[in-house]
């Protein structure tokens, strides 16, 4: 079975994140970039399927040159090859356009039966890419998986979100997004790291996907950002030491604000 795992390099959430003044997009240069943790779980899940049977794993990313680091990490964990869509024109693409680019890129891998992704990136947080990709591909999407299994032509998932739990089932080909609790991703072994250096990475641009520069990036986006501003820093208000009356003091403050 051919599996594609979507990976994404994101700004480390522990570093300061900002937007670029010039074009109002995420300023990816100003913060540390890491392989989004949830993607490692997606890679791990693909590796489990491979170990249990027979699968070929291709990791797919859309991003600038330095996304190579994220690809290497996934390959050193055990994925077989990678597709790296890297094109200046993509910069600033909205979620709908990104879904279209990903769908085209998945089309470059032969006979894909399963696409795995993280359920939510820490930067864009649209939390819907798997569903959107399924929509473009015309495949079912099974999202927020805490457990999954593939049996014959069927994939089943235990789904958990803030809103509730459910069991999902669909026929392959399908898109599955994994949630935090699905597994603990392995650390790449030394052997894995060495082997990763020899694994094929296919670097393609949007013309290889049959797309035109006007269809992607800021030009192709269906939303336009007009302005942005850092939220005015919330200044700390009063801070008092508890002298046995801390609770009463909070109550007074809340009453003054008409909150109680």
């Amino acid at each position, binding site marked *: 079975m051919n599996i594609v795992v979507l990976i994404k390099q994101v700004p480390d959430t522990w570093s300061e994140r900002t937007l670029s003044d010039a074009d109002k997009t995420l300023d990816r240069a100003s913060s540390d970039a890491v392989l989004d943790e949830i993607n490692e779980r997606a890679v791990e899940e693909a590796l489990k399927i491979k170990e249990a049977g027979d699968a070929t794993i291709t990791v797919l990313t859309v991003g600038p040159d330095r996304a190579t680091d994220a690809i290497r990490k996934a390959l050193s964990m055990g994925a077989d090859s990678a597709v790296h869509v890297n094109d200046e024109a993509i910069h600033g693409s909205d979620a709908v356009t990104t879904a279209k680019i990903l769908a085209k890129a998945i089309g470059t891998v032969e006979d894909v039966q399963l696409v795995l992704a993280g359920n939510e990136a820490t930067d864009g947080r649209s939390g819907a890419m798997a569903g959107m990709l399924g929509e473009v591909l015309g495949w079912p999407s099974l999202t927020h998986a805490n457990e999954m299994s593939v049996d014959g032509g069927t994939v089943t998932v235990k789904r958990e979100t803030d*809103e509730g*739990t459910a069991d999902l089932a669909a026929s392959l080909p399908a898109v599955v997004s994994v949630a*935090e609790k699905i597994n603990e991703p392995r650390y790449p072994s030394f052997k894995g790291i060495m082997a990763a250096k020899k694994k094929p990475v296919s670097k393609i641009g949007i013309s290889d996907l049959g797309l035109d520069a006007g269809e992607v990036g800021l030009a192709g986006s269906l939303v336009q950002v007009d302005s942005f501003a850092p939220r005015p820093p919330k200044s700390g*208000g009063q801070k008092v030491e*508890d002298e046995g009356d801390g609770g009463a003091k909070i109550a007074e403050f809340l009453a003054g*604000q008409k909150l*109680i």
Partner: protein
Amino acid sequence: MAEVLVLVDHVDGEIKKNTYEMLTAARRLGEPSAVVVGTPGTATKVAEGLGAHGAEKIYVAESDDAVNYLSTPQVDALAVLVERVSPRAVLIPAGADGREVAGRLAVRTNSGWLNDVVDIDDQGAATHSIFGGAFTVQAHATTDTAVISWRSGSIEIEEHAAAGTQETVEVPAIDESKSAKVSNRAPIVGGDRPELTEANVVVAGGRGVGSAENFNVVETLADSLHAAVGASRAAVDSGYYPNQFQVGQTGKTVSPQLYIALGISGAIQHRAGMQTSKTIVAVNKDPEAPIFEIADFGVVGDLFSISPQLTEEVGKRSS
């Protein structure tokens, strides 16, 4: 006037107040029409509330399959209506399920998707809060219809009497090969407490609470204020409180009128989920805890004496 569709947020016919918020927002853009997707009988349960909050029309897409497939029934119904009435916007709740519906609808109808919107004006300019409230962004959709994921708790609900005329929507049968079938659906129920993202008041506990048993101090204060209970990642990771109550970067984003942080240091990860709260109160033993930088009122001290005292004071004032 252009129609504005609002996907009714409900669990088995029990409406969530976010629906009324979306109807209030929709009225700024045009004429609100509510869209009810659910099992037969759902519309009857929700119609009165929808009419009282501005829904001129109520589109009803009821079927047994509405709960048997993941997000497809909602996407199908909304796509049929987008095609038919060319609404100026479609408002959809910004929860996990809603975002999936919104993203898929945007793809299917080739519409611009504005995610996690907290405000909108009559020109269709949407305000988003990103990176956990560190930035606000103004954006608009360049397509005829905008798909808008609306973050709960962003604006005041306004009542507005409207016709609430019901109209059945015929939705084509679900294509099984393109949909995930759902079974054993179990909504997470938070007992008698309000839902975390919908609550006006949230009382949250962190590592400083020290144990799962000690969380009853947090719960007791929460109950005195009719508040939801939240927890920091540190508290969740230590097993003090269940995962679904986690507030922060990797948990829920909340924006209540009042947020009380007990024993939470206030790391960036946590602040990202709560710093847009209107008023923040913090209790922490460490006077240097970063939570105090954003707290409107902070008390340096032991939460195990301060919190019960506050609970008692709240009780006195409300009786």
